[in-house]
């Protein structure tokens, strides 16, 4: 009677503790991304701030440049400076909630790959940037842009924007994760991210200026798409290789 009862008890210490169920990357990314978007939808913080900032910056440009309308390389420059500076706001907020509310510690306890957080944060930031551009580009066209580009030109601009957003999202995730650990977070983000993003600005601004010329837009040069693609690839690989080291302990 007692022998069979003690049998399982004696083997229990030898048996390994139940394996923590490993959460596949895709599931983890989906959960984290849902959290990211739910937070922003319930208490909108980053996107409205970025959108409002971009419109304000356009107004500032109107007065600083003393122009009612812009076109060509000036228009391209105004658009990209506005988008880039607005993106800085999103980057410096990216990890703040997780850092302050213990989300990072919770994530580290979960049996999953840390890359999941990188992917979720980068995709989340990418979505925020797209949302920003949905507001900022029409506002720019309405407030400052002189020529009215064709639908085709806007489509080409959208391709440029998406490729540039991918680069900004990857660099932003890396820089945001570094900056959130420093005492001077909001100072470090623009200082570090702006030089890193100069290749993006070069390619995006050069690519955009023929699209917004006064006498009808010329085609987009494909080589700028290649530069942006190369940039996204290099920083994608770098972020993948280095992100694990940024969220230890």
């Amino acid at each position: 009677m007692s022998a069979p009862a003690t049998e399982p008890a004696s083997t229990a210490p030898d048996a390994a503790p139940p394996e923590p169920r490993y959460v596949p990357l895709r599931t983890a990314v989906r959960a984290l991304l849902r959290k990211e978007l739910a937070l922003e939808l319930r208490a909108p913080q980053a996107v409205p701030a970025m959108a409002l900032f971009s419109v304000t910056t356009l107004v500032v440009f109107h007065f600083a440049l003393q122009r009612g309308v812009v076109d060509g390389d000036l228009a391209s420059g105004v658009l990209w400076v506005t988008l880039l500076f607005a993106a800085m706001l999103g980057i410096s907020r990216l990890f703040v909630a997780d850092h302050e509310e213990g989300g990072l510690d919770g994530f580290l306890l979960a049996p999953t790959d840390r890359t999941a957080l990188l992917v979720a944060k980068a995709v989340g930031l990418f979505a925020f940037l797209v949302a920003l551009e949905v507001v900022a580009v029409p506002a720019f066209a309405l407030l400052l842009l002189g020529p009215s580009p064709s639908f085709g030109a806007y489509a080409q601009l959208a391709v440029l924007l998406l490729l540039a957003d991918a680069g900004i999202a990857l660099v932003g995730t890396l820089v945001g994760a570094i900056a959130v650990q420093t005492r001077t977070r909001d100072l470090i983000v623009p200082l570090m991210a702006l030089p890193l993003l100069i290749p993006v600005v070069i390619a995006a601004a050069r690519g955009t200026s023929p699209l917004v010329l006064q006498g009808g837009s010329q085609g987009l040069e494909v080589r700028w798409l290649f530069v942006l693609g190369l940039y996204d690839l290099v920083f994608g690989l770098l972020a993948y290789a280095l992100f694990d080291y940024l969220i230890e302990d």
Partner: protein
Amino acid sequence: MLYGTRLRALSIATLVTMTAALALAFFYAPMDADQGFMQKIFYIHVPMGIVALCGFVWGGINAIQHLRTRDAKYDLRSYVAIHLSLILGAGVLVTGSIWAKASWGHWWVWDEPTLVSFLIVFLLYATYQPMRFSIEDREKQARYASVFAITAGAFVPLNFIAVRLAQAYTHPRVFATADGGLPAKMQLPFYLSLLGMTLLYITLWRYEMASKNTSAKLRALRRKLAGDDAVAPVGRTAAPSLPTT
């Protein structure tokens, strides 16, 4: 590793090579047909730029080693490499600016891709020390600095490609021009100067490593002799600290 050994020999070799390179540059190399005497700054400016960039990349390589081994000594190597490259980088920007004024009449020329790329790289690395300084936890500081050093090291070539694509080719591209590049009589002083600058970098790097290591050892000895309380704790600093055990 003992960084303090053979420092005297290294210093003398640096001094001799630099002196010989400058002597050759001034008295042996022919006067440039277009730019005249001002072209002599080339023998300082270009080797300095090459060595500074290599130093940045080398800092990145040491940072990779640091992340792989978690050994604080690689962090110190990476820190000293980047720190010295920043000093050389300031020199590159100043000499480049002087050269631009002499040959194009402006202190700063935007359509000169190499100098512009260098400025961007310099501005990026200028955030290295503030970033280190604002992370208090020593282990975290080292880890984050390494991640930054690797990212920035990989950024250097990418940035050069992007800036070069964006601008006209006005920089004197001494090695890639169709008419054969640098004349033979200019090559010897140039390569000697490059060697001298490399030696200078290595010498300074070893001096600083030796100094930092010695201070750490001294602290450890003091702590052993007089007890932990007798040695004041290290204040907040951007410099990496070696384990004082």
